[in-house]
């Protein structure tokens, strides 16, 4: 079985600027995959190379086994892309745009049932005959997603689909996208909201300055980057041999990274021996946000 997306040795230069510096990545069919990284890491550039909006400086990308350059028609048939920018055609309404979009891919009236399903699934039913111009920002975003799905592509790429979108839509969107994923569609997304990636995605790649810095399952990432944190408020000086475990210290608040839960015992007894008073104790789960900040640094904390 061909991979949903196979990226080999991709580099992309804009003039002298190297936006992507050698990306290798394989995403299997049926995966729910997150592409994370700070602004400017090259996520959108990578997506544009998949969809053929940009051409690589070197390397190859295959979608469902079809090369995006030499076999571009088959590759594009297999791909549905929701662009990051909120673009729309002001001449037509939502349903017309979806029909046109499906038509460009060769889908005719037999596809109308699917179009209705997408329109309903994204909560656009009562806006189906509204001109694109008259939709609110959130509704435009839904229409943009609907359009990308119009030809029922097996691989769906969403470039920050929930940026600037209200909670209600985010929930509705993920319910619908998860349903598609269960039906076998491969989903790739970039997002600002790391909790989304954490709850939705099985695997995560983190990009930084045009390179993949981490590629792992979400679970493994969370586990390997210290499963838990111990947060204490103390009075006194933390003994030197505990310093290596400290992740962060601010005033009287000290956060320790724990490799396992048994270390709580060790830390507390060491503090007692050093006659450091413990005022408050909190045990925290690590989330993807922490891993992310660990790996790519706190550049504004944006994904």
């Amino acid at each position, binding site marked *: 079985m061909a991979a949903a997306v196979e990226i080999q040795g991709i580099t992309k230069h804009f003039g002298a600027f190297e936006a992507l510096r050698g990306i290798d990545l394989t995403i299997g069919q049926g995966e729910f995959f997150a592409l994370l990284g700070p602004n400017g890491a090259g996520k959108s550039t990578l997506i544009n190379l998949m*969809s*053929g*909006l*940009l*051409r690589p400086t070197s390397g190859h990308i295959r979608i469902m086994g079809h090369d995006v350059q030499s076999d*571009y*028609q*088959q590759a*594009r*048939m297999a*791909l549905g*892309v929701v*662009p990051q*920018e909120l*673009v*729309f*055609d*002001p*001449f*037509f309404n939502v349903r017309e745009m979806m029909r*046109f*979009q499906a*038509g*460009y*891919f*060769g*889908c*005719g*009236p037999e596809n109308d049932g699917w179009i209705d399903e997408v329109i309903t699934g994204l909560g656009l039913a009562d806006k189906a005959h509204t001109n694109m111009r008259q939709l609110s920002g959130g509704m435009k975003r839904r229409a943009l997603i609907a*359009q990308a799905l119009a030809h029922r592509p097996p691989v769906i790429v969403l470039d920050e689909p929930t940026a600037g979108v209200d909670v209600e839509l985010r929930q509705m969107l993920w319910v619908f996208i998860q349903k598609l994923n269960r039906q076998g569609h491969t989903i790739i997304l970039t997002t600002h909201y790391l909790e989304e990636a954490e709850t939705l995605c099985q695997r995560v790649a983190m990009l930084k300055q045009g390179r993949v810095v981490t590629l792992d399952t979400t679970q493994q990432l969370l586990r390997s980057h210290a499963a838990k944190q111990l947060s204490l408020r103390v009075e006194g000086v933390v003994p030197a041999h505990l310093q290596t475990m400290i992740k962060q210290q601010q005033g009287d608040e000290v956060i320790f990274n724990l490799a396992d839960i048994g270390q709580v015992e060790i830390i507390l007894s060491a503090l007692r021996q050093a006659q450091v008073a413990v005022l408050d104790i909190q045990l925290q789960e690590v989330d993807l946000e922490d891993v992310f900040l660990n790996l790519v640094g706190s550049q504004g904390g944006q994904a």
Partner: protein
Amino acid sequence: MMRLLSTWLNPFYWLDDHISPRYRGMYTLFKKELLRFWRVAFQTIASPILTALLYLLIFSHVLESHVKVYDQVSYTAFLVPGLMMMSLLQNAFANSSSSLIQSKVMGNIIFLMLTPLTYLEFFIAFLAASMIRGLAVGLSIYLVALLFVDVPTVHPWWIIAFALLGSALLGTFGVIAGIWADKFDQMAAFQNFVIMPLTFLSGVFYSIHSLPPFWQAVSQLNPFFYMIDGFRYGFFGQGDVSPWLSLGVVGVFLLALAWLCLKMLKSGYKLRS
């Protein structure tokens, strides 16, 4: 009843169901481009017709008794084919160029770039829609002009040939300009400094034989002159040059522009980098 009528009057009704999947992409783009101008037909069809008729009324009123271009042809009748062709050319150009520049500025051109449409299908769809708008405007001007003046049609096939070639040439030119321009004002400049002068200086309002020799020679370098002269020959059976010469010149220009346009589209010029 109304529904039945509207489905029968809808030219896409049958095609929507029966077009082969192989051609559906191109057909859909063509249909979208048609609907795009049809939705605003007042501005894209009615307004150019009105403009042409105003030219007709004013110029014929002022010049009818002063200018005689061909024997047995009134000046008003002489004006009609020129005005038809001028409007046909301008509207064929406007259709593809404005659609492309708008899509580029709005960003929705990417909806097309994400599809499996080939560059040839892209070209044909934009071209066909442009030609239909140009031809619709030209034909409408003819029909309305018949209310005021008798215009003969001596060689209908020449008329049809030049209408098709002219609309194709300017439709292609519009695609080129639409892809090249990045901003609306570049497009406006193109329209005002290239298309307008070329159409106005092509003999719409006069025969070039009435010009001094220098300006006659200059006019003969203008490809628009041949489109209008050949077209007019179809109506009156006489022109400033042979219709075969005009056919040759227009044909060569069309091939050259189509070649350039396809080369731009194939390379992804300004669309994919």
